[in-house]
């Protein structure tokens, strides 16, 4: 499958299947089980990408490169573990998506959230983090993967908004679903308002990492891609 067809297929999965699952969940479980439904929907929405990756039996080179990117993200989170909001995971995920495409970005995002929680503690929040970082990687692939060496400014702007408007709010809404069984507008607004500072720091950290290391790292990833023909059309 070409990169283009692959991207389109993955986009359909993410943009059609997930909302359909949410709708189904709210119709079948209409009685205030938001918590369970939300976790199930989150896990289910992770599955299509994982199964698709599984079905095309990936090459050894692809697997190893992706695992290096995941390890980088996890090691980065461990290195900055003293400051919870200041972590480079989103930056690594965005760079993977930009260099290797939507699917790779999603896998690196979801994988690094899952693995880093072996060091920081697994819990009901794990599927949310997996989905959040996975989506960031996916979108990065959608925006940047078809360009040759995207500009630093574009990466930084995308990084900030992806964290500040997508990842942060997703986790905040997730925490509302976790702590209150009946979701009200006030509760969500309150959770979003209390999360603004944390999300802004997280977004700022992502911008900092992307500005400092974004272009050199992308050049390196591109070099490996071209030199060995990994994760490109010519595989």
């Amino acid at each position, binding site marked *: 499958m070409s990169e283009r067809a692959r991207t389109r297929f993955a986009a359909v999965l993410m943009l059609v299947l997930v909302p359909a699952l949410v709708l189904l969940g709210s119709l079948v479980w209409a009685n*205030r*089980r938001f*918590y*369970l439904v939300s*976790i199930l929907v989150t896990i289910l929405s992770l599955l299509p990408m*994982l*199964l698709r*990756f*599984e079905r095309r*039996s*990936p*090459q*050894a*080179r692809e*697997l*190893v*490169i*992706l*695992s*290096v990117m*995941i*390890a*980088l993200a*996890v*090691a980065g989170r*461990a*290195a900055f573990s003293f400051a919870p909001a200041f972590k480079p995971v989103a930056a690594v995920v965005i760079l993977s998506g930009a260099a290797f495409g939507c699917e790779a970005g999603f*896998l690196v995002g979801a*994988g*690094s959230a*899952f*693995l880093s929680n*072996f060091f920081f*503690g*697994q*819990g*009901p929040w794990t599927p949310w983090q997996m989905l959040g970082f996975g989506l960031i990687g996916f979108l990065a692939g959608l925006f940047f993967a078809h360009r040759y060496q995207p500009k630093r400014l574009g990466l930084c702007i995308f990084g900030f908004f992806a964290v500040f408007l997508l990842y942060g709010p997703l986790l905040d809404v997730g925490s509302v679903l*976790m*702590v*209150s*069984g*009946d979701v*009200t507008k*006030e*509760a969500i607004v*309150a959770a979003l308002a209390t999360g603004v500072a944390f999300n802004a720091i997280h977004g700022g950290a992502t911008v900092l990492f992307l500005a*400092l*290391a974004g272009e*050199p*790292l992308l050049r*390196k*990833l591109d070099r*490996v891609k071209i030199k*060995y023909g*990994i994760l490109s059309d010519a595989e």
Partner: protein
Amino acid sequence: MRALHCAVSCAFFALVLIVTMLVLHPAYLLISLIGAAGSLAALTGLHGLGQRLKWVLPLMLLTVFFNAAFQHRGVTALFYLHNGNAVTLESTVFGLCAATMLAAAVLWCGCMHQVLTSDKLMALTGWLLPSISLLLSMALRMVPRVLRCLKETYDAQKAMDGLTGPLAVPRRCVRALSGTVSWMLEHAVVTADSMKARGYGVGRRTHFHRETWGQSETLFGLTLLVLAGLTLLGIFSGSGTEVFYPSLQFSPPTMKNLAAWCCWALTCALPMLIEGKEALQWRRSGSTI
């Protein structure tokens, strides 16, 4: 509990977590919370439990407060806020239940973290998602290697670049990161070629796991099956129904419901029973040597 086959322990945690999240009846939740706390204490000691409770208790308080303050449904008003909204008994009780549910789920996850370690989880997902589990286990192995590479390149940079000033450390960090990335990527390609040379992708992958299915697994599995069946039967026959709004209605403690609650309590006590039995066995074997 740690020595059991990962399939049965995974089935146990799946059952316990799903029932905890599904049934919001106070009796079920309290039993689950006590069971989870006891199991965590049995697995990690009181210190481990205390470590978790340190932030689970504030989370519970926050949950109760959140529900009482933002949810104004229910018919029994306790008092009125200055903006005219009522704090109701129903929303407070709901908050208590949600808090207990959340705490129980978090504590069960803590137990799961102790029993299902990453290697067991990988062995378990190995037959379902072989590539993903290979990907994750390789990444897990590479984390310490990345950290070591970072340190090595950083030290080498420091020894030779002669940078001074406030920007020296960030610049060195970026250089070290950049060097580490190329190092790891080149290394990755070599690893991949080596994998390919040894026949990666030719046949079905086999997996290394030390677990064997013995007598204790059969015993635990059967016990779990019976208890799970009885608990689910109890739930579906109405021993765990709860209505919060507009007014509170819970299943009363009749004989039948009490029996169902006992089954659930026994299920939640399984980790404690196993750990207790093992501790007793250990002590007894020690005294005879």
